[in-house]
């Protein structure tokens, strides 16, 4: 008796004890091993950060949960309705089943971008995506539940003279509830996940957006705090549904067994599962980082690009193809970037030796968060982002934007827009600022007067649409010069392998010089990286990229030069917009000593 009671107690407390043990090991481990906080902060720090950021996180959580709950409700209602339709009219199921299975065999993320284009960046797209996923779960479970009703019980009711309606309410519905609740439980967690993923793909609100934003701004602590919030939300929703299930299905075997054995079993275990999965992820990240740390081999180096292969990175492919790296006794692996890959993070963790990173602004915010980054050069002397209006809109000066709709990306350009307006004495609050989706469609349809555009992408898209008469506001013309695309490495590389850094920079700058001087050839080399690229587009991009590289100091001093005034301006700009908590030591953030040692002939364009 005693041992049985003890074992029940053990089963009840084991998951909790295990969780506490893991947390303690985590806390002790990162402190003892001095794991840098950007790799893995201790749990207490995460909790403190979550509390400090509670307003931001609560607002984001609210948005995400509204999306998740609305989608969950809609999806379950439609799913159950379809189950009823298919149950009573099996012919409809044969018609629709293929379509339903086909659309659900693709992960929802695959067509999330399309749904976002159709329904915009607001809540509707997320609700629909969540509904889509939960609908399928519920449809299957409810149909199975309705079909697995005991046929003898059905006969019994019929022998009493019951009609279908009576059989449905008395027998089918209650008997299908256990199946249905399985789907409701799975759907609860799934709906939070889908809402977050959809937000990461296109949104300016919610936990997914905060995760996306903190990843790109390298605000690790807030990222962890957001992950914590998201997992608490998912587990909470799950537990709430489980509690409803236990009340509704108290008569069912699964619930009674659980009750008899250990009252909290399902809750405790699934909580443990959730946390367990969480820790597995953390462990994998730590292990990945640990194996990557000593990865820097002698003369083998890796370069991480900030995006997919394209002419934006032409210099490196050319240096590779023309043997400039070989001349420097380097074997360089060029790795493309992609969505949610932040090149700086990989350099900071030691997974990559070099990166073409985001820009002086992300270098400084990264340093501010404690990432050991050092830039040895910067490629674009000004940002490629401009703001455009159609001539026909009558807008010619920034003052004309008062009362007009202006769309901007919220990944930084919003600050540039506001600074531009202020430089002309326009209060940014008098301009109607709206989030900009992934397409230029709203601008083309005149739903917004002004939109943000990258000179080598969206601007070319507008030209291709036949729009020639455009008014272009270039931030550089208003004194807002933020150099972009740093050549960045880690403090460790600078300390331990300065000659490798030196040789890499020299060969890369030679590559860039050659690419700018031989653009057609450079485009052909770019096309070899990915034959699916469109050559016309790459040619235009090459031209625009060359223009940005040799703009101002790039022409006067040489490719890759970091202009002190521009760096100082960026610092000031970030501080004014609360993107930096304190001034960053610029001399630690970048160094010109490697650049200075590169012969002029290798870096100045004729």
């Amino acid at each position, binding site marked *: 008796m005693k041992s049985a009671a003890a074992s029940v107690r053990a089963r009840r407390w084991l998951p909790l004890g295990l969780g506490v043990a893991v947390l303690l090991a985590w806390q002790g481990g990162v402190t003892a091993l001095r794991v840098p906080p950007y790799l893995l902060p201790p749990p207490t720090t995460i909790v403190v950060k979550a509390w400090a950021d509670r307003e931001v996180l609560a607002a984001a959580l609210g948005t995400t949960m509204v999306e998740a709950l609305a989608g969950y409700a809609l999806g379950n209602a439609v799913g159950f309705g379809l189950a009823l339709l298919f149950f009573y009219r099996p012919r409809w199921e044969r018609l629709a089943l293929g379509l339903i299975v086909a659309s659900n065999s693709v992960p929802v993320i695959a067509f999330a971008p399309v749904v976002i284009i159709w329904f915009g960046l607001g809540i509707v797209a997320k609700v629909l995506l969540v509904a889509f996923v939960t609908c399928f779960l519920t449809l299957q479970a409810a149909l199975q539940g309705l079909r697995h009703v*005991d046929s*003898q*019980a059905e*006969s*019994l*009711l*019929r*022998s*009493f*003279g*019951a009609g279908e309606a*009576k059989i449905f309410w*008395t*027998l089918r519905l*209650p*008997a299908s509830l256990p199946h249905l609740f399985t789907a409701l439980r799975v759907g609860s967690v799934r709906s939070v996940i889908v809402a977050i993923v959809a937000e990461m793909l296109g949104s300016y609100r919610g936990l997914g957006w905060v995760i996306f934003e903190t990843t790109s701004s390298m605000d690790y602590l807030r990222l962890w705090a957001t992950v914590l919030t998201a997992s608490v939300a998912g587990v909470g929703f799950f537990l709430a549904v489980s509690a409803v299930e236990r009340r509704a299905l108290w*008569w*069912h*075997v699964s619930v*009674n067994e659980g009750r008899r054995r250990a009252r909290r079993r399902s809750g405790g275990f699934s909580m443990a599962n959730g946390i367990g999965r969480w820790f597995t992820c953390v462990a994998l990240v730590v292990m990945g980082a640990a194996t990557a740390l000593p990865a820097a081999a002698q003369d083998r180096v890796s370069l991480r690009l900030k995006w997919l292969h394209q002419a934006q990175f032409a210099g490196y492919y050319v240096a590779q193809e023309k043997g400039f790296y070989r001349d420097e006794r380097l074997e360089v692996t060029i790795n493309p970037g992609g969505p949610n890959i932040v090149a700086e993070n990989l350099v900071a963790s030691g997974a990559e030796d070099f990166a073409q990173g985001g820009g002086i602004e992300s270098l400084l915010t990264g340093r501010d968060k404690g990432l050991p980054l050092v830039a040895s050069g910067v490629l674009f002397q000004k940002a490629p982002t401009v703001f455009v209006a159609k001539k026909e809109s009558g807008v010619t000066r920034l003052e004309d934007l008062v009362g007009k709709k202006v769309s901007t990306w919220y990944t930084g350009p919003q600050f540039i827009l506001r600074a531009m307006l202020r430089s002309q004495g326009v209060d940014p609050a008098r301009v109607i600022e709206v989030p900009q989706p992934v397409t230029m469609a709203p601008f083309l349809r005149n739903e917004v007067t002004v939109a943000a555009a990258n000179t080598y992408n969206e601007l070319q898209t507008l030209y291709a649409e036949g729009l020639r008469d455009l008014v272009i506001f270039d931030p550089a013309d208003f004194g807002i010069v933020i150099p972009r695309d740093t050549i960045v490495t880690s403090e460790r590389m600078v300390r331990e392998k300065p000659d490798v850094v030196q040789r890499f920079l020299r060969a890369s700058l030679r590559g860039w010089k050659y690419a700018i001087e031989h653009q057609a050839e450079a485009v052909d080399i770019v096309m070899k990286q990915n034959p699916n690229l469109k050559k016309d587009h790459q040619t235009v991009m090459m031209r625009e990229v060359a223009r940005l590289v040799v703009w101002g100091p790039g022409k006067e001093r040489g490719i890759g030069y970091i202009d002190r005034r521009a760096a100082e301006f960026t610092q000031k700009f970030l501080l004014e917009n609360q993107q930096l908590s304190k001034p960053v030591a610029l001399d630690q953030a970048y160094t010109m000593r490697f650049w200075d040692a590169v012969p002029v002939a290798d870096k100045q364009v004729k």
Partner: protein
Amino acid sequence: MNPDKLTLERIAKTFAIEGRHLPVLRPLDLRVPEGEFLTVVGPSGCGKSTLFNIIAGLLPPDPGGVLRIDGRPVDSPLGRVAYMPQRDLLLPWRSVLDNAILGLEVQGVPRDEARRRARETMPQFGLAGFEDFYPFALSGGMRQRVALLRTFLFEADIMLLDEPFGALDALTRSILQEWLAGIAVRYRRTILFITHDVEEAIFLGDRLLVLTARPASLKLELKVPLPRPRRPELVTSEPFVALKRQVLEAIREESLRSFSTQATVEPG
């Protein structure tokens, strides 16, 4: 003699399986007077349950057969016969009381009224005090009594019981048999009772039918002239044993035939 409650005229059933005809029930004529307890025995798989499903209205008989209740032909007996299959089929989400009133509820009796009637009858079924229990808390014998009560409360003059004690242990079974014999006398319902247990058939029945192996037809019809109330000791009495021998012989013949038929001519 009471007037006939239930009349079967040339009731037959043939199943079509993969294009082949499988006769299960030969044309059968049967008259069941009001208040009679009629037991039906036969070798397993002979079609007893098919016969019951037809009488309950769950399965249409082959064309040509006529089913009469109180002398009038009925198209569908659904809702006129209280049917109790082998399994108790209690709904786990309903209490004992609410399971018992299921039939009444379907008949449209207001819930309060139905519950009142069920409460009144509970003591006779040994269920007093268990009204608010749920099926998972009951023993097998008790569950079976709830199912019987549910059948009993349903307002129909004919009760069809398909091996209701089949899954119970011997002791519970004999207690329930004695109890059912008492109930039958007390309420004078017309009862058709299927079993493969010969002793049970004799002990409970006023009349006993033995069906042949499939396709089923009438092998033997036997009056059971034993006095009521019947006590358990009865099964060892001379007349009981004589009846039992007679029935067992008939069954054995059929079982053997069924056995060899299955081995040789079974259509699949």
